[in-house]
């Protein structure tokens, strides 16, 4: 597709389980970002990838959160031992390197029960 694609679009999981969220960026975009949006809130930066490297992980809230990117393409955000406060929409965005505009996917809505 032409845009940023995220899966799953919705995920309900039990507290304590691990979840993986996937992002397919726009083809050729070297920069990839993960953000979290809690209900009624703005977006919180989580992590930034340039190629397969993550020069900025400063927004990851705890060591339960990790992310990787392979082939300068797909990225996976993993949340271990999920907690109820992890419930949010997780948004992925990508951009060409050095560009001012980033393009967001539709997000993965995570609910931890």
């Amino acid at each position, binding site marked *: 597709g032409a845009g940023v694609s995220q899966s799953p679009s919705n995920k309900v999981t039990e507290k304590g389980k691990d979840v993986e969220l996937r992002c397919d960026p726009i083809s050729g975009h070297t920069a990839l970002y993960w953000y979290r949006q809690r209900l009624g809130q*703005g977006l919180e*930066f989580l992590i930034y990838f340039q190629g397969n490297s993550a020069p*900025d992980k400063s927004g990851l809230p705890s060591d339960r959160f990790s992310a990787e990117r392979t082939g300068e393409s797909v990225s996976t955000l993993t949340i271990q031992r999920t907690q109820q406060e992890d419930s949010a929409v997780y948004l992925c*965005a990508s951009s060409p390197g*050095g560009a*001012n505009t980033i*393009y967001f996917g*539709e997000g993965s809505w995570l609910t931890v029960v």
Partner: protein
Amino acid sequence: TQLLEQSPQFLSIQEGENLTVYCNSSSVFSSLQWYRQEPGEGPVLLVTVVTGGEVKKLKRLTFQFGDARKDSSLHITAAQPGDTGLYLCAGRRPGGTSYGKLTFGQGTILTVHP
């Protein structure tokens, strides 16, 4: 601590009215962006302002960046129901190496009634 304070948080108006949304900070930003987000979708960029005092117009939308690059406003003239959505401001801190690392305000939910 919210670096970007957006106000009002909710705005409910009638079609044809004018409105202004404010985005304020005590910090300087190298640029500031405004996004619009509809339910179930990601934010979509409306505009980027870079220079202090800059004013940009996009049809019925007017965006302004404060002289000190600490605040911004979005003004909509003659609002229409299609303007309904969540409006977000987002700033890029000076010296950052990542263009996409943004600090977002908490958003303004705008509802325009026919």
